[in-house]
């Protein structure tokens, strides 16, 4: 049995206080010595071994030694060593230092005359493992420093003290039971791992108070960097019975050197689902002005970079509209080193694009089919032949966009979303009122750059310079219609927006121009789809960014400013008592080392029996 375990068994047998009286020690000593002697005498019985021819053995040197006085003396010496070993263990269990008052014990005046101070403290070691404890301003981290500090406190316990190791972040948990064995307590301390949660001090103190209820001399030692909310500090700790709790504070943390991304949110703009808007909040917790850069990446590619200069404590909100995000996840990262790496990055997820439906009406057109294919798998394209153009009008409500490719139905639509290529005839929504004969086409129209409405969603990111058009038909604009591009007085791209109706039209057949050969053509189709499906209802357009799914941090955990003195309920917490050198730690170690040495010696001198 482990020696510490033996001491615990003795303690458990003789009382919760762990005090071993002289009488009990004497009883155990006598019984143990008797048992050792009995076992030893049994051990002295030689093992009988049958040999074929004893004369080969009996002349050996060992035959004489077996009965020599020296040999017999060695037997008795071995017994003496075993008894000494037992005495050392018993002495370690009795612990002469037990009666000495430990740190935190009431002074001599607190004890009544003649009263023996045999009880120790009940101590809960509360180790903060919240997100801020991952800061690296201490050697290793603040949590590593907290573990070292806790080890020191454990080293200062007396034999009568019982300690429990607990850790907390958003929740508190016990890492050990009430122990007096420093090794087990240290193992529990080593098992405390960092968390990315904020620390809930009041919850942790309530947990400790519940554990300490009914125990003698309850004490809580809080090992933390002190980064708690004012609300958490406002209440004084007490046990469930309302009695004040003795809480000590062991601070960790050396400096405040941290920049943090407190929140990151990204969403698709409701008015333009193809566009992504990103918002983030960055704060400096440094005592001096600092510069930093924020990189926004998506799909492993940096898509945006913003340089910042922040004054001490400044919190800045950044909004990045029209962000190109090839992946559903957006990540923001602060470049540059600081003490807390966990809050230097944040992630947000973009909701997927809604599924769209397009109805394409007309004959074969590889250019248009190619552009529609480029819209990706979120767009479903149905096709109708040119002869069914009128049927397309009836089905328009089922589609986000109906494209008439060089085809014009017999009547202009009253509702729906449409894109016309070179509309003509009676069904042309941009025909002159009362016109009977078709107008003559305009040859070689040239797009006037001054006429371009570049801010319009239909022309976004479009380069229409030098587009060559063979011929165009003159479109007549009605009230509210807009010519987005024109060749002097000839509109070439027009739009019409009415309630429940949106029409965009090209006054020319793209196939009779070089527009399909340009990157602008698939972009124009994509823009047309986006313009046709964009919402104009402002109430539904702007949900708060943070609801879009992203990172939101507690600024308190990012604020790594050291708190050398912590006040709870208006009272500053005292520091833990310094680990006073006491007899038990040294004596116990020496007793164990002596026991080990005696065991080794005994084994070498007597127990070399690996015989079969």
């Amino acid at each position, binding site marked *: 049995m482990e020696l510490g375990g033996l001491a615990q068994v003795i303690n458990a047998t003789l009382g919760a206080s762990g005090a071993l009286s002289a009488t009990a020690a004497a009883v155990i000593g006598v019984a143990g010595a008797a048992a050792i002697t009995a076992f030893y005498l049994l051990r002295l019985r030689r093992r*009988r071994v*049958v*040999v*074929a*021819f004893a004369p080969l*053995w009996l002349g*050996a*040197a*060992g035959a004489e030694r077996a009965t020599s006085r020296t040999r017999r003396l060695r037997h008795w010496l071995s017994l003496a060593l075993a008894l000494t070993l037992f005495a050392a263990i018993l002495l370690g269990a009795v612990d002469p230092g037990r009666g000495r008052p430990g740190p935190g014990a009431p002074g001599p005046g607190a004890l009544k005359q003649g009263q023996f101070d045999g009880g120790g403290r009940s101590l809960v070691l509360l180790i903060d493992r919240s997100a801020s404890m991952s800061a690296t301003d201490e050697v290793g981290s603040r949590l590593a420093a907290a573990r070292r500090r806790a080890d020191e406190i454990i080293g200062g316990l007396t034999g009568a003290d019982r300690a429990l190791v607990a850790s907390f972040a958003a929740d508190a948990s016990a890492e050990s039971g009430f122990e007096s064995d420093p090794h087990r307590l240290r193992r529990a301390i080593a098992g405390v791992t960092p968390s990315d949660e904020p620390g809930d001090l009041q919850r942790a103190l309530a947990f400790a108070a519940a554990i300490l209820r009914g125990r003698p001399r309850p004490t809580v030692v809080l090992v933390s960097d002190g980064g708690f909310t004012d609300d958490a500090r406002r209440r004084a700790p007490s046990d469930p019975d309302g009695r004040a709790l003795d809480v000590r504070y062991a601070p960790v943390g050396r400096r405040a050197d941290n920049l943090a991304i407190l929140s990151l949110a990204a969403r698709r703009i409701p008015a333009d689902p193809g566009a992504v808007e990103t918002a983030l909040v960055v704060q400096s917790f440094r005592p001096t002005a600092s510069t930093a850069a924020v990189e926004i990446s998506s799909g492993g590619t940096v898509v945006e970079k913003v340089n910042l200069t922040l004054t001490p404590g400044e919190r800045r909100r950044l909004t990045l509209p029209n962000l190109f995000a090839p992946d559903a996840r957006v990540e923001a990262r602060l470049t540059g080193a600081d003490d807390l790496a966990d809050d230097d990055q944040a992630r947000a997820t973009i909701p997927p694009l809604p599924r769209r439906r397009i109805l394409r009406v007309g004959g074969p057109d590889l250019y248009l089919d190619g552009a529609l294919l480029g819209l990706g798998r979120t767009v479903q394209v149905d096709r109708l032949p040119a002869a069914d153009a009128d049927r397309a009008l009836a089905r328009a409500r089922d589609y986000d966009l109906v494209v008439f490719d060089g085809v014009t139905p017999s009547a202009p639509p009253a509702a729906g979303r449409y894109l016309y290529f070179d509309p003509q005839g009676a069904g042309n929504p941009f025909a002159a009122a009362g016109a009977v004969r078709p107008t003559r086409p305009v040859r070689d129209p040239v797009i006037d750059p001054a006429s371009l409405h570049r801010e319009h969603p239909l022309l976004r990111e479009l380069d229409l310079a030098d587009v060559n058009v063979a011929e165009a038909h003159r479109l007549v604009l009605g009230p509210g219609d807009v010519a987005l591009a024109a060749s002097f007085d000839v509109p070439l791209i027009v739009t019409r927006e009415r309630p429940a109706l949106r029409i965009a039209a090209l006054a020319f057949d793209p196939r009779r121009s070089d527009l399909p050969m340009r990157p602008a053509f698939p972009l124009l189709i994509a823009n047309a789809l986006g313009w046709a499906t964009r919402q104009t209802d402002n109430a539904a357009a702007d949900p708060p960014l943070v609801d879009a799914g992203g990172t939101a941090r507690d600024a308190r955990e990012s604020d790594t400013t050291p708190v050398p003195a912590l006040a709870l309920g208006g009272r500053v917490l005292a520091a833990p008592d310094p680990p006073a050198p006491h007899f038990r730690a040294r004596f116990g170690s020496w007793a164990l080392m002596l026991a080990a040495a005696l065991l080794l010696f005994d084994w070498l001198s007597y127990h070399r029996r690996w*015989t079969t």
Partner: protein
Amino acid sequence: MTASLDSGAARACAAARTDGAIGSRFDERFLRKLESLALTIRRTTAGRSHGMRRSRRVGAGLEFADHRDYVPGDDLRYLDWNLYGRLERRALRLYEEDEDLSIDVLVDASASMAMGRPPKLELALQIGAALAYVGLSNLDRVAVTALGAEAAGPPPARGKARILPILRFLDAVHPLQGSSRTSRTSLTAAVREFLSRRRGRRRGLVVLVSDFYDPAGARAALELVRRHRLEAIAIQLSAPDELAPQLRGDLQLYDAETGEVRDLTVSPDALADYARRHATLLRELRGYCREHAVPCFTLSSDQPFDAVVLRMFRTGGLLG
């Protein structure tokens, strides 16, 4: 002498084994090995003789051996007239007489032979059975005796068919217990008793299979055999744990044969002493055998019997 094998005899052995006439010691596998061994030995020693061993007795043989002076009454047919013509000396020509050999296989069955893993006695009995079988196959007169056993062995016999009584006898041999009276009899005493029973039989060959752990000394038993003008062959067996004991610590030694009990602390020094004494015993035995032209084989009990016997015949000096 060479071995010849009648497959019918092997079948008889197998049948006897099936009928339970032979116990578990000489199982089917042993008999097959024995048969194979006899065949191998016959090939190995083929050409050395004609199936008969030449005795040293001078008589009516074909091969000239020596001269001796004529005395009245001698058969004149053997007078060497050529010698008389040259030297005028009357002398008789003497010839070596061919006769069958008398072989006694003595297996030490004392308590010490039960020691070891595997026990030495098992290998000793297997070797005894193998030598007896080979001898019988060569038409020699073979008798097997277990030294120290209560029961006497079967009488000397010739012919392969007589192997069955020998195997039955050997199968019933068990090591003596250390507390019994006979177990305390030394090897020399057991050999002396055997020789007194043998008195009156012709001279021959005595194969002594033992560990030679004898308080009188390893050579005493062989000396006794030689004094009776018998040829001797010594086969010494040791168990692996006798050659390299794995004992340590404070022990109470119990002598398997004498029952003597002594305390001993087995240390590395004591082990070295033991190893020295054991080596001396073997060295003395080999030295005596070399000095008196006695074939001697020292074996470990963990060796397979067939390989051991084959090696004896190949190295020579045994029965051939």
